[in-house]
């Protein structure tokens, strides 16, 4: 019954002859914390701008909260913290939130209620009367985040929300996102801090060259890729060739003799061990390691650079 928070079909954006986004086809369910990952120049910012109606797609279509992209009324339920958080710096923090609350169409009473709470939430309760010109980068980003949450949105776009923050600030943002999850708010998060994505997101999309390469829940990404370190007595070329059947091409460290290879699923691990033992190899060490999201990112985004 409920429409997805974001749904796009073949969204495409060309700037002259340059294709910024080739094909964005995505579906984000309500209540999800969705990570949007890709290298610089992958088309992430253009994608977000199309979703928010700042940029008109060349072709394709999309819906936010069930309404077509660019519908002004829908934007009253959408919050946005842009990557470049420059605001009217001659306003005080409270005035800034008041302005954006008015633009959201909030009543004076609703604004008076929400603004002090939000200032507290982002740790700027004491700075309500300070002009933004006197704010540090991190404080601007936090007031920008408060702005994105003014109207209790159902969907929030956070474009690099922690780029200007210190570790404490980043932790604050994680806490806020967790709070949004509890309230059932959908969060569309674009970040270069993959460790943060790992801590906060339910699902992630990898995009490169303006195309979605892969969309997957985080657990799936964790389970499907395993790195295995092996130490085997007197390894032979036959051993290396045999191991290659179970995953990626094994690599042997010349000094220590340690062999490393990647398996595509956990299930192959016992098989591989059985084969090793049956073949009479002396197995001294076998340690499976889960890949970090960063390593998976490099695998997924970095492979087949010529494709697409």
């Amino acid at each position: 019954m409920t429409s997805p928070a974001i749904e796009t079909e073949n969204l495409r954006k060309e700037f002259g002859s340059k294709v910024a986004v080739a094909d964005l086809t995505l579906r984000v369910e309500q209540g999800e914390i969705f990570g949007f990952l890709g290298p610089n120049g992958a088309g992430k910012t253009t994608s977000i701008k199309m979703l928010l109606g700042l940029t008109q797609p060349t072709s394709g279509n999309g819906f936010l909260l069930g309404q077509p992209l660019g519908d002004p009324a829908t934007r009253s339920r959408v919050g946005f913290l842009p990557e470049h958080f420059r605001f009217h710096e001659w306003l005080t923090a409270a005035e800034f939130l008041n302005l954006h609350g008015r633009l959201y169409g909030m009543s004076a009473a609703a604004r008076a209620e929400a603004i002090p709470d939000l200032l507290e939430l982002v740790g700027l309760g004491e700075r309500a009367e300070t002009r933004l010109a006197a704010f540090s980068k991190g404080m601007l980003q936090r007031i920008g985040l408060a702005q994105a949450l003014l109207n209790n949105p159902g969907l929030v776009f956070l474009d690099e929300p922690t780029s200007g923050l210190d570790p404490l600030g980043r932790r604050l943002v994680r806490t806020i996102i967790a709070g949004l999850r509890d309230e059932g708010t959908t969060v569309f998060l674009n970040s270069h801090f993959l460790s943060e994505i790992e801590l906060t997101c339910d699902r992630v999309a990898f995009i490169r060259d303006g195309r979605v390469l892969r969309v997957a829940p985080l657990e799936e990404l964790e389970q499907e890729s395993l790195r295995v370190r092996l130490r085997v007595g007197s390894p032979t070329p036959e051993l290396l060739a045999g191991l290659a059947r179970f995953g990626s091409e094994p690599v042997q460290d010349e000094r220590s003799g340690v062999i490393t290879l990647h398996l595509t699923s956990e299930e192959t691990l016992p098989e591989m061990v059985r084969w090793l033992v049956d073949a009479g190899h002396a197995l001294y060490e076998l340690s499976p390691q889960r890949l970090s999201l960063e390593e998976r990112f490099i695998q997924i985004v970095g492979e087949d650079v010529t494709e697409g």
Partner: protein
Amino acid sequence: MKTLWTMTTLTIREAQRRRILWVGLFAAIAFLAIFALGYHYVLVEIEAEMSDSAGGLGFDPITAFSTFLVIAGLYVVHFLGIALAALLSAGTLSGEIETHTIETLLTKPVRRWQIVMGKWAGFVIIILVYMTVMTAGILLIARLRSGLVLSNVYSGLALVFLSALTMLSVTMLGGTRLSTLANGAMAFTLFGLAFLGGWIEQIGAVLRNEVAVDVGIVSSLINPADALWRRAILIWRSGDTGLDLPGPFIVLSEPSTLMTQYAIFYAVVLLALALWSFTRRDL
């Protein structure tokens, strides 16, 4: 309507916070003080001369010089109004696009034209208040000192205001596509063109050279500021038999009433184009 008003008050508050209003007020007071002093001493001189000679000049020198000085003062107000319109608004869209400030505004449940119109209305209020204070000051000084009252003063002033509004439309439109600097440069180039075209037209009229007059008319079509100014002088000086000192205060080639209508059309169409251009623009 609420969004519009929010943007209008924001625009006025920006001018106030950036101290534009205070600097403007201070400059206006300084200008009026100098005008009052200069005006007073010129009249003192003329009054002394008049008591010596028996008159017979064919015109009343006090009225003639008063009119000339008042119109010179109003010319400065005209120019400052245009400059204020250009300086205030040249960066309002382009600047916020360049700094990305505009992104958090436009992702609210607002329409883009509301943002542009709200800012425009704010600028109109600031420009009108500024020009009203300046003209009221000049006219009041003249009236108190010499009793001079320009004929049809309000209809002439309406044209001077309209002139500033045509410039505002130019820079609002430019700001939707150009950088702040390019927009400002374009605005002042257009004003320079109108000024020069106006002179060429006047000289053409003296020499009875129709090509020169046509050049002037074309330049007035590109930017009607100067034509509006000359039409304002025409209105103020209708029926006065003052002397014609050379300068931007003479009208030999008369702009038609059609030019006034054209200027209104120009201001409205350029503003509409600004709304259209900004609505279609990718950010």
